């Protein structure tokens, strides 16, 4: 897949040669796997799905799914939506308001025998836990129920490719977990490509075979969840995957064994990091995930260890299973954010205002 | 220049009375010319016409429309008003008459010279006015009945709501023959119809005119009626094909 789509804010802008308001330039591969499209709101994920589905005509490039050319700008191919055998869950569901749940779900089952239809609908109802609602009209459904009807409708005809635009956004965790499993199962069973948009980190990480990061209409990085989450390529990706501690510093020492030394800008602190290839005196952006920071008691013996710096606790927020600490480092403007399992606090009682040591684990530092 | 100043002085002196005359549509052109002559003679009276089918005019009057004079194309409508005492009986006069003619399309291949030829099998549809709504139809049916042709012809007749409709059908060759007023035949598109004969009617076709009871300008209205029935008025009407 490699296509472009331009949006203009006014119709005439195109003719007038005004720059488009938004330009999507998407280039990625997706095999028969579950691909998560991940990106900021407004980065072009929905637009990408719409181009693939054929609901939007790209301005250029080509879209090939499993060898079938869906769209090719040069060969002037533009397969009609109907022939693409899609299952598409729209971000706003778009379930038919004049049909009840049953009819909505059965709508894609064209040419099926009535009893097969019946069976398939029942299967879907059960899978999505909306049994008992089959005769409700959309106006009689809750938000999450609507979303599940949209999912059921898209899944029912066993399509050749699934495009899911934030399909679980309105669902509670219990259904959501079950459905994540189901979607993975369906992917394995049917061996089809599934493109999945989500804003949920855990969802992206657990469900994806591959994650594609969008930013401002451009693909920034592609890779397995581990690659993308643990080794973001640039600042945008890093921010997106929750690598909250991002700094910019200068390399002050270059080691032979292909690792360098970074010096924190506003201080006299020196940090060691593994950098594949960096140049002396070069400015680099580096970061570390909050859960990769270690907190130690203010113990003089540890103080002089590599990458261990004193800090003051500015705030502690309980997230349920873990706590997030904001740490002020001496002479540094930005706060360091650390996340630690609640269990940790059982052994180590720390409160706002306390002083402690932060260890920035060398191997976990990411350089962009 | 003299008349001008006289007229100017007149308008200053006497107030102009406006009268509304409801006149049958077939009188449109004749009455329009009549107005000029009348107003020249009576500068203190301004005539407004209201032209429509006699039936429509009658219904307007029944409904209480502010009309001063009614000039109908049929006695029937005048009679209906008379029955309801809506007209001034004394003022009712016949002021013009008309004749019914038999017309055919100009390119008609049928040999039609008179109403009796219409019974021939070759003749398809014959168009006449609806006797209930168009006076011409009533006269036609009477005439045909009198000639003993009506029973035979009834099945091939097509009723038109007004004379114009008959004329259109004949002009376009949609029917084989039709009966219209001679005055209407004169207004047809040149070279489209042929007048075959004048049909003698049982009752003479006379146009009645009358003053309306509800009129608030009875005097001026009477002046108008007098003018229409005067020699001057008659001459103008005759120039449009009406017979006196």
């Amino acid at each position, binding site marked *: 897949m490699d296509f472009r789509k331009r949006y203009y804010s006014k119709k005439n802008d195109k003719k007038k040669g005004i720059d488009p308001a938004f330009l999507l330039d998407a280039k990625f591969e997706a095999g028969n796997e579950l691909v998560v499209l991940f990106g900021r709101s407004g980065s072009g994920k929905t637009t990408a799905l719409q181009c693939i*589905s*054929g*609901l939007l005509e790209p301005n250029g490039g080509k879209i090939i799914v499993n060898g079938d050319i869906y769209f090719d700008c040069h060969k002037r191919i533009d397969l*009609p*939506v*109907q022939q*693409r*055998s*899609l*299952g*598409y869950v*729209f971000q*706003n569901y*778009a*379930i*038919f*308001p*004049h*049909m009840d749940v049953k009819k909505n779900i059965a*709508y*894609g089952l*064209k040419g099926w025998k009535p009893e097969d239809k019946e069976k398939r609908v029942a299967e879907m109802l059960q899978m999505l836990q909306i049994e008992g609602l089959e005769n409700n009209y959309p106006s009689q459904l809750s938000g999450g129920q609507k979303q599940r009807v949209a999912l059921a*409708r*898209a899944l029912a*005809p066993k399509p050749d490719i699934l495009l899911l635009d934030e399909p679980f956004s309105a669902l509670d965790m219990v259904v959501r977990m079950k459905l994540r499993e189901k979607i993975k199962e369906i992917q394995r069973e049917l061996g089809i490509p599934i493109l999945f948009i989500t804003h949920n980190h855990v969802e992206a990480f657990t469900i994806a075979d591959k994650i594609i990061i969008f930013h401002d209409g451009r693909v920034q990085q592609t890779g397995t969840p581990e690659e993308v989450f643990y080794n973001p390529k640039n600042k945008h990706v890093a921010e997106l995957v929750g690598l909250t501690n991002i700094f910019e510093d200068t390399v002050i020492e270059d080691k032979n064994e292909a690792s360098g030394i970074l010096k924190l800008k506003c201080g006299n602190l020196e940090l060691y990091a593994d950098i594949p290839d960096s140049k002396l005196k070069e400015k680099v952006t580096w970061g570390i995930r909050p859960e990769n920071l270690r907190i130690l008691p203010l113990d003089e013996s540890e103080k002089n260890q590599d990458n261990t710096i004193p800090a003051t606790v500015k705030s502690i927020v309980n997230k349920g299973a873990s706590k997030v600490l904001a740490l002020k480092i001496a002479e540094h403007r930005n706060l360091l954010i650390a996340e630690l399992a609640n269990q940790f606090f059982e052994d180590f009682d720390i409160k706002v205002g306390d002083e402690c040591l932060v260890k920035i684990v060398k191997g976990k530092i990411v350089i962009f | 220049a003299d008349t001008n100043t006289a007229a100017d002085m007149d308008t200053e002196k006497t107030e102009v009375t406006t009268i509304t005359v409801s006149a049958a549509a077939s009188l449109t052109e004749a009455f329009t010319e009549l107005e000029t002559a009348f107003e020249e003679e009576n500068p203190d009276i301004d005539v407004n016409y209201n032209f429509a*089918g006699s*039936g*429509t005019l*009658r*219904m307007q009057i029944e409904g209480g429309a502010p009309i001063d004079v009614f000039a109908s194309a049929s006695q*029937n*409508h005048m009679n*209906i008003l008379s029955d309801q005492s809506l007209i001034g009986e004394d003022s009712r006069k016949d002021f013009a008459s008309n004749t019914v003619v038999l017309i055919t399309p100009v390119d008609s291949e049928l040999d039609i010279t008179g109403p009796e030829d219409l019974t021939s099998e070759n003749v398809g*549809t014959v*168009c006449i006015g*609806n006797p*209930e*709504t168009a006076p011409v139809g009533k006269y036609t049916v009477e005439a045909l009945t009198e000639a003993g042709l009506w029973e035979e012809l009834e099945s091939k007749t*097509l*009723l*038109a*709501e007004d004379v114009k*409709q008959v004329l*259109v*059908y004949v002009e*376009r*060759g*949609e029917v084989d023959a039709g009966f219209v007023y001679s005055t209407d035949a004169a207004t047809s598109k040149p070279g489209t119809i042929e007048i075959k004969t004048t049909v003698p009617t049982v009752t003479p076709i006379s146009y009645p005119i009358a003053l309306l009871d509800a009129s608030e300008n009875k005097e001026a209205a009477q002046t108008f009626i007098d003018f229409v029935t005067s020699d001057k008025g008659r001459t103008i009407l005759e120039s449009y094909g009406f017979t006196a």
Partner: protein
Amino acid sequence: MLDQIGFPLVITLRIAVLSTFVVALTGIIISYILARRDFTGKWLADILVTLPLVLPPTVTGYLLVILLGKNGVLGNLLYNITGWTILFTWEAAVIAAFVVSLPLMVKTTTAAIESVDREYEYAAFTLGRKELETALFITLPLARKGILAGIVLSFARAVGEFGATLMVAGNIPGRTNTMSISIYSAFQAGNNELANMLVIILVIMSLLSMAITAKLVNSWKI
């Protein structure tokens, strides 16, 4: 008297129902195209469709006579092929009713279809449904309030149609005298009693038919 009422009633219903049926069908098709397609000359189509509305019915009728008469373009063709003249038959009245009520149907339905969110159509496309199926089962049902309004207006107009009908169908007692024409005749003849009776029957008939249509269209959820 029964005869004076019975026949006009039957023929009027027949004409109105048939013409409304045809108007609804063609109207929906035209409206769909106008609402969902872009083509050069769209404005022309739009104008042609609205035109019969601004012309006095008699003029429309006259134009139809010119078109459908023995010597008219269409009428001549029809006559040469079938030997049949449509003028002065009740079928001509259907055509007249069709022409005068089509604008009502098209304007109303086009607006209704344009107001349907395209998202639903797209959803149907992704489910493998062709445009025709989508139009039938998604777009039109969603536009049904407007379509119903169009049908009711068209039906009422067909029932009340008078000027153009008179021109093309004439008034052949026992063949083409519709309610409207009969009412007109009765009024013109000063037969107010009959006229009033006919008006009442016409009104009752229209209301009944409209109520039935409303029921039918509103239940159209497919």
